[in-house]
């Protein structure tokens, strides 16, 4: 079996949040033991709602913050052992907000050239690779001298993608790349990402709360809840037959543009997930419509990719 493109092992991130001068500090377990493995050229979709830790997970994978425990291996190399420049050649991000992901004071050409400059690539080669990249993302060459404020949201996201791919990384990590874009622009960007993935044989991690988008582009999907992956399965299988109650609730709450179906009752109750107060046993049990007694006492085993007591009963 070939080395997976990226392997995440038991990744954890804990924060201590002080509550003012006199309050007791809260211990937040933002990422609480995540294990994932993605083969080369595949796309993993990570879905979850607020408080699930997917953004923290993204930053851990990119090396933007140190992990409390666990490791990330890209093609067998432990990312924490590499210096930043070596890491940059392996994995690159595309962020959600097209307005804050580009330095407003630099020109487009410089923005896309920045990773090359950081790697010490010579000037003329930098220029030609930037031009090539801009063409690949569908940006006209004369835009290179413009500033981000002069571009639309969709164009800026293309620039962000160009910047991420100019180093030809192995892994592309997209953190909600289309959530801030209009629907008509979103489809353009998704099509672009699909083309680039194919032509560059990219391995992609696609984090999103938009399940319809994830189903469309992912090979495998991982569902995150309160810092753990509660279910992981090939995309079609997950959407056709979700096994974990949270996945079922999540899928039920997706409002597809099909009239006449009304709004489903997701039945999750009002208790909101709080990563500083993770429930004992199965972390989903306070909101779970089918929880049994065992769920509040024992952590569930992983059965067929889902962590739920009801599956092993």
């Amino acid at each position: 079996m070939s080395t997976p493109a990226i392997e995440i092992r038991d990744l954890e991130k804990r924060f201590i949040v002080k509550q003012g001068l006199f309050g007791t500090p809260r211990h937040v377990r933002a990422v609480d033991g995540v294990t994932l493995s993605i083969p080369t050229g595949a796309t993993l979709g990570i879905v979850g709602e607020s408080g699930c830790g997917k953004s923290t997970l993204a930053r851990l994978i990119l090396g933007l913050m140190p992990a409390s425990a666990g490791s990330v291996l890209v093609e067998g190399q432990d990312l924490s052992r590499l210096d930043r420049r070596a890491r940059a050649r392996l994995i690159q991000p595309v962020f959600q907000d097209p307005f804050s992901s580009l330095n407003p004071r630099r020109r487009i050409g410089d923005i896309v050239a920045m990773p090359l400059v950081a790697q010490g690539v010579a000037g003329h080669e930098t220029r030609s690779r930037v031009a090539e990249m801009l063409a690949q993302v569908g940006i006209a060459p004369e835009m290179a001298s413009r500033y981000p404020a002069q571009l639309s949201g969709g164009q800026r996201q293309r620039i962000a993608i160009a910047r991420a791919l100019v180093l030809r990384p192995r892994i592309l990590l997209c953190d909600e790349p289309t959530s801030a874009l209009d629907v008509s622009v979103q489809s353009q960007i998704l099509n672009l990402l699909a083309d680039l993935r194919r032509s560059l044989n990219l391995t992609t991690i696609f984090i999103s709360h938009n399940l319809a988008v994830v189903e469309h582009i992912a090979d495998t999907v991982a569902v995150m809840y309160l810092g753990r992956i509660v279910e992981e399965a090939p995309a079609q299988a997950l959407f056709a037959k979700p096994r974990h109650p949270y996945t079922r609730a999540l899928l039920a709450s997706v409002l597809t543009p099909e009239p006449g179906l009304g709004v489903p009752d997701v039945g999750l109750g009002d208790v909101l997930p709080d990563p500083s107060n993770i429930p004992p046993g199965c972390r989903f049990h306070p909101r779970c419509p089918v929880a049994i007694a065992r769920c509040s006492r024992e952590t569930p085993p992983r059965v067929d990719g889902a962590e739920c007591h009801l599956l092993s009963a």
Partner: protein
Amino acid sequence: MSLLEIEGLEVTFGQGEGRVAAVRGASFSVARGETHCIVGESGCGKSVTSLAIMGLLARGATRQAKRMEFDGRDISRLSEREMSRLRGHRIAMIFQEPMTSLNPAYTIGSQMAEVRTRHLGGTKQAALDRAAELLGRVGITAPGMRLGQFPHQLSGGLRQRVMIAMALMNDPELLIADEPTTALDVTIQAQILRLLAQLQADLGLALLLITHDLGVVARVAHQVSVMYAGEVVENAATADLFAAPRHPYTRGLLECLPIPGKVAPGAPLGSIPGMVPKLTPGFTGCGFRSRCSLARAECAAPVALRGAPHLYRCVVDA
């Protein structure tokens, strides 16, 4: 007769050379007890339309309409005083950001009670009782305790429920909701939308819902108005709009959606080439023509809505 009738609404910002037409022609009506969705992408003018109806436009904005009637009464020429009597009483509004819609310095109870006592008088205690009743109705547990809490102690979903309860304090006939669930998680969104549907059934509330999410539209709306570049380009019953869209923009928009089951995974999604035009002074005609494969010379002149009851603004026969 409809509760809200809007015809030919236009809103312009600024003066002279820098004028921008935010809304160039909005026409729709909302019947009692019905949910009407205005759907469109950023910059189409949907939020400005709702603010224009409420009379909440910023200074420097000019508003004019052929007809703006609420319950048969012309509201376009009301004084600010008369308008403020209507707002919060017969017409209520809730906004997108539950974080910033509530005043962080006052308790939930005092904010809700103020809405009641201001419009309908009465004692503060009576208002608080009503507030507790409404908090219960919107599905908030332990309403008495919540009245004494401050906004920051509540989550986003709870805050939005409080906003809805607050909007209902004076038994409005029309609730205008501007992207009420966009900032919320998907599971919470479903709960809030169910709540709104329930309230509509129980109270006969008319709902004008502004959104960019076609999924929401499909599931909750009775009537839909699609807006693009400041104009309502299509207006129809929900089922008709999705089954047989008549405007090229609506068709293009529906093709962009990755609908599971309808669009094969991995297949390229439809897209609309080009960008929204800048609505400078003097821009006339169809705003979509620069991106439309069916564009003709006639599109440069103002196009009227036609094809009742499934209205669309296009010179090309659908």
